[in-house]
């Protein structure tokens, strides 16, 4: 008997909860869903969509919660597979390739596209057509802590580091003064996508030259060990490894700890990008002034790559067309226009610390010193285009990054590293 009462209670509870959960499914005029792979600024997107709903009450935009790390790809795939594809989304340019036949081809004559910087429109181009619009410019190289460096070298000029020898001398000076010279973040994305990515990208300013090099690795006509850029960058890498602040345990790869150590001036330089400000900015004790030094690969100060930093537009906004209605697509287009080109929309990105590649961004927008430093390289065209690498889909960065990690701890030597990289590319197919 007692049990019957227990189950009656359970059933009532079930019914009650069902009643609570059913109820509010209001009829909105246009309902859009947005998928963000920039998990760190989910809150920003939510605020933006709430504000947009205030000014356009007939449009409701729902942010689909992002999975963690690797989960993002799988979640997006299951959204598409289950017929719940988001109306619009931000994804890596590499993913355009996967979803190409499901994304809107943007009309390049769209009135408001005139606000995009010329190179920004290229970020989302695939096979000559534009599928995505970027919203941020980010960059990476050897970031340095001004207070720490200037405590050793009072009038330090980052432009003075334009050769491998200059970098070596710089590190030696710091080391002699008892300042740990540099730090490598021991995670495969940092050493694989970002560092090794330099080797491919510095083959030329345009995406095509880097891609040509990768294709020659894929079809085996080229061995990476024969490439002077590879050898050059690996020589520099040896230097970084030698003076690595994390030398005792290089593969921990805890971004919180590394960012914090760098912000507290525990080491002078750090191979990382301006996005680390999203963490450093929230710290209570931190240095505020930073700059970037290029990663030199040879002793020729005029060689491409020795005086440039990598600047990329890591995410692009796309609209889905196979599972959304024309009304939804048109509404999404209007939302994008508001987000990307209106003063109000742009303000959200600026406040979040994004440097937007649009020419109507208010000129007095101020950024943190890292973003500012990258923007200065950008303004004078001293940039490396990492496009060839972001155009490669899949797990290239993780696989080659793991090989770089093995090299970092000395589990393999450079010849073995080169062999493994060659072997990896041979398993890939040409895009």
């Amino acid at each position, binding site marked *: 008997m007692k049990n019957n009462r227990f189950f009656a209670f359970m059933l009532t509870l079930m019914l009650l909860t069902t009643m609570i959960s059913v109820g509010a499914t209001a009829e909105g005029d246009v309902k859009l869903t947005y998928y963000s792979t920039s998990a760190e600024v989910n809150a920003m997107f939510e605020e933006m969509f709430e504000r947009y709903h205030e000014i356009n009450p007939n449009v409701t935009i729902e942010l689909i919660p992002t999975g963690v790390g690797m989960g993002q790809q799988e979640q997006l795939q299951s959204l598409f597979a289950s017929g719940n594809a988001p109306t619009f989304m931000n994804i890596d340019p590499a993913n355009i390739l996967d979803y190409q036949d499901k994304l809107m081809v943007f009309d390049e004559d769209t009135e408001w596209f005139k606000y995009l910087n010329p190179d920004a429109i290229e970020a989302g181009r695939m096979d000559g057509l534009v599928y995505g619009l970027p919203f941020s410019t980010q960059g990476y190289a050897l970031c340095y802590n001004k207070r720490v460096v200037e405590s050793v070298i009072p009038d330090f000029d980052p432009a003075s580091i334009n050769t491998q020898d200059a970098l070596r001398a710089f590190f030696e000076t710091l080391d002699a003064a008892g300042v740990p010279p540099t730090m490598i973040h021991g995670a495969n994305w940092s050493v694989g996508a970002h560092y090794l990515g330099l080797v491919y990208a510095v083959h030329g300013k345009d995406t095509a030259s880097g891609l040509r090099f990768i294709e020659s690795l894929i079809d085996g006509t080229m061995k990476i060990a024969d490439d002077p850029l590879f050898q050059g960058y690996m020589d520099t890498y040896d230097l970084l490894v030698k003076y690595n602040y994390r030398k005792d345990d290089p593969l921990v790869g805890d971004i919180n700890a590394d960012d*914090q150590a760098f912000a507290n001036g525990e080491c002078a330089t750090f191979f990382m990008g301006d996005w680390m400000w999203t963490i450093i900015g929230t710290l209570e004790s931190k240095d505020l002034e930073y700059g970037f030094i290029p990663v030199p690969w040879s002793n020729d100060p005029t060689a491409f790559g020795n005086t440039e930093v990598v600047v990329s537009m890591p995410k692009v906004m796309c609209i889905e067309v196979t599972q959304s209605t024309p009304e939804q697509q048109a509404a999404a287009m209007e939302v994008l226009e508001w987000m990307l080109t209106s003063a109000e929309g742009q303000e959200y990105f600026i406040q979040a610390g994004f440097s937007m590649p649009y020419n109507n961004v208010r000129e007095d927008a101020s950024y943190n010193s890292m973003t500012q430093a990258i923007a200065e390289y950008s303004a004078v065209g001293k940039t490396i285009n990492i496009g060839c690498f972001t155009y490669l889909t899949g797990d290239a960065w993780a696989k080659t990054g793991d090989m770089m990690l093995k090299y970092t701890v000395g589990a393999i030597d450079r010849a073995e590293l080169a062999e493994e990289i060659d072997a990896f590319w041979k398993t890939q197919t040409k895009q």
Partner: protein
Amino acid sequence: MSVRLRKQHWGRTVLVFLLLILFLVPFYLVINNSFRSTELFVNSPFRLTNSLDPKNYIDAFAKMKFLNGLQNSFYITICAVALILFTASMCAHYLVRNRSKLSNAIFGMMVASMIVPFQAVMIPLAKIYGSLNLYNNSLTLIFFYMGFGQAFAVFIFHGFIKGIPVELEEAALIDGCGRLKNFFSIVMPNLKPVLVTVLILDVLWIWNDYLLPSMVLLSPSLRTLPLSTFSFFTTYSVDYAPLMAGLVLTIIPVIALYLLCQKQIIEGVVQGAIK
């Protein structure tokens, strides 16, 4: 003799308590650091907090949309677990009391299914249920749990029911008691200890599950607590301080349930022993 025994007990007690402390260190870290900043956590995780500043809890409460998540988690967990307990205990009873080739085949299939990697059904699930337009719905998720939960629950009930003397039921059936009534009034009460065990294990599984709800529940308003906890994870980093507070908030209901039921488990287990 009895002195020696007591000595032995002392040794055991100390050993077990030491082990327990070792077991609970991570929880000390979580609770302690839910009152401290991420920065302090990374630098000195063990140092005892010098304030009981609820800032992280307030942050976590707001950022996770805690009440919304709590309601969803409750709804999904209660419905799914109730359904699993009902259906699996009845199915197990049938399978034990009606030994046939079919019964054995069903039982074998269920046991085998416990080792199907979730990855093997993930995309097919999305494709099938998505095309039926059943995604983004709590009821679908409850049904999924009911399906995924069957095998383990049937397996446990099966083992337990085997141990209940069949004579009791036979007597009731001869007295003209219907099969359903027989099940609920004779079998169910005997299942109490194992019902509580399965209840707890399933509640823990469903309450904490991340992967399945992340696939099925797309709207933020449907999010369960574990999904909300991940608002502290960004692509490459973790905001530890509010995460710790969020974790504590998420575990409280489960701890409450466990403490509540622990009595019943022991009671049930003891009853079973006296019989």
